[in-house]
């Protein structure tokens, strides 16, 4: 359990993290999402005490990280690949960290095997690829068998196999009841790994919700192309479904599964030229989330806009009904 309260970090007159409050709960993967420079890494560094908060407070399992008797048993952190002396071998690096807590040698060998580093454990870290550096960082994070894991962009630099492995691994850690906080700037990665997402932008929490809510509403959409798109669009209309015109014969649908759209097209006898799931980038989601904030202030009462998907004047305008 990680609890941040009004956490703020100021560098000079710039606020990198601005009054952030959130709770990361055990037993699930919490995604920490935001563009580069949003304050994710700074927040994570404050959790383990590497950066001092300007104000506010963050605790891990009830107390500040540094106050724990066995910090590595509370939190395992992968904050950047290769926070390691380049002249030391991977095994010796892990031995040195393990020694601080009296963690036995067999545990060092265990995490080496666990992260697939066995072949390179005796090699100096200076020659490691980014992917191997990530594996070593993960091995170091796991040394103390921690109840909480904090992983900053763990799939960065990994090959596709490694990405799959990290996803499965992180999910299994959460299934064991651990607290997992995982950052990424890729919404699609989060959609596959996280149960809960905290979106951060410009140092503030923009959204804090289960992954289904955020991804469903803002990220993945279905691109539908049909010569009779207007007819189909009218059949898709229901609460929580957003249909957006992008071309005369194409719409983007949010809030419906592709199966539902395909069935609807068949039922209506409308030919489909394209039905594709498009995973938006974080930037899309992020833009949409911030736009939502703006829209709440100038909201047009729901139901007053009549979504006519075929009307060219509504192009590029989101309409819901």
């Amino acid at each position, binding site marked *: 359990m990680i609890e941040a309260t009004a956490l703020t970090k100021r560098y000079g007159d710039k606020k990198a993290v601005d009054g952030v409050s959130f709770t990361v709960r055990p037993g699930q993967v919490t995604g920490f999402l935001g563009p580069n420079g949003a304050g994710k890494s700074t927040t994570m560094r404050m959790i383990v005490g590497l950066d001092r908060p300007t104000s506010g407070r963050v605790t891990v399992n009830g107390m500040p990280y540094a106050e724990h008797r066995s910090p590595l048993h509370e939190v395992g952190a992968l904050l950047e690949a290769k926070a390691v002396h380049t002249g030391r071998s991977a095994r010796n690096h892990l*031995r040195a960290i393990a020694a601080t807590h009296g963690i036995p040698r067999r545990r060092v060998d265990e995490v080496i095997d666990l992260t*697939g580093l066995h072949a390179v454990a005796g090699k100096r870290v200076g020659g490691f690829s980014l992917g191997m550096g990530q594996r070593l960082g993960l091995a170091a994070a796991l040394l103390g068998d921690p109840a909480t894991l904090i992983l900053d962009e763990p799939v960065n630099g990994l090959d596709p196999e490694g990405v799959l492995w990290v996803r499965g691994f992180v999910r299994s850690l959460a299934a064991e009841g651990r607290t997992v906080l995982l950052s990424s700037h890729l919404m699609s990665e989060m959609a596959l790994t996280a149960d809960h997402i905290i979106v951060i932008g410009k140092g503030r929490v923009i959204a804090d919700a289960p992954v289904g809510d955020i991804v469903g509403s803002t990220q993945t959409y279905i691109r539908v192309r049909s010569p009779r798109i207007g007819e189909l669009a009218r059949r898709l209309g229901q609460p929580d479904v957003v249909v957006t015109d992008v071309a005369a014969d194409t719409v983007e649908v949010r809030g419906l599964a592709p199966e539902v759209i395909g069935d609807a097209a068949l039922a209506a006898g409308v030919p489909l030229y394209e039905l594709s799931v498009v995973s938006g980038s974080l930037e899309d989601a992020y833009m949409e989330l911030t736009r939502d904030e703006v829209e709440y202030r100038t909201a047009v009462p729901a139901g007053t806009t009549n979504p006519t998907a075929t009307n060219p004047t509504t192009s590029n305008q989101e309409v819901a009904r």
Partner: protein
Amino acid sequence: MTAAVTAPSHARASHQPLPEARLRFTGVLASEWIKLTTLRSTVWAYAVLILLQVGMGMVLALNITTGSPQSDASTAVFAASIGVMLNQLVISVLGVLVISGEYSTGQIRSSLTAVPKRLPVLWAKAIVFSVTSFVVSLVGILAAYAVTSPILSGAGVSSSLADPEVWAHLVGAAGYLALIGLFAFFVGALLRNTPGGIAAVLGLVLVVPAVLSFISAEWVTVLTQWLPASAGQTLFFGGGVFEPWQAVLVMLGWIAVVAIPAAVLLRRRDA
């Protein structure tokens, strides 16, 4: 790696608990010992230190002329400890690198995550580095004595390690290297930067005394006597204005002057 990929296993493969796993200062000491001894640069620097100590002593002993005004004992000490003049630079560079290398590589963030109270890392590193440096220096100096004393005996200069004037100065020479190394270590901890740290230490050990020697004012002479390198020479070459215990205090004073701000800033600064 394929095995790990195909089987996303549990965090604890064996599910054996780690019963005594907790943070202790002895553990931090062990960690720093592992860190010091698993870098090639450290091992090489210590090897070079011993070779220089023996090599410079031999060169001096082979060129010694009889009838020197010094006593036999101080001639023998001089030969065994002449290498200190060069090795103080070796140990200073190593002292800075031991800590600045952690900052330049990012290792410091791993170190401070494992020991989030931070100061134990600084003290453990200081202890491990200064004790190791003392022992290695003593080995080098005793080896230099073992090699040079037969040569000097041949030239009619006889000495004995049992003579307090001999062994005390040889131990003093090793102590001087350990203390100047420790001073450099804390300068490195304060500046967190390899070139800056090395420049600052070598400047104080080499450049400042040389520059001050051109100034004949009384207060400059006094100031020079208080510099760490000049005060410390009393420990092995003898002479000087300080008693050996005073010289040690002067050097400890210099160390404190950098160690205290280094410790305060380590607690305060972002890593």
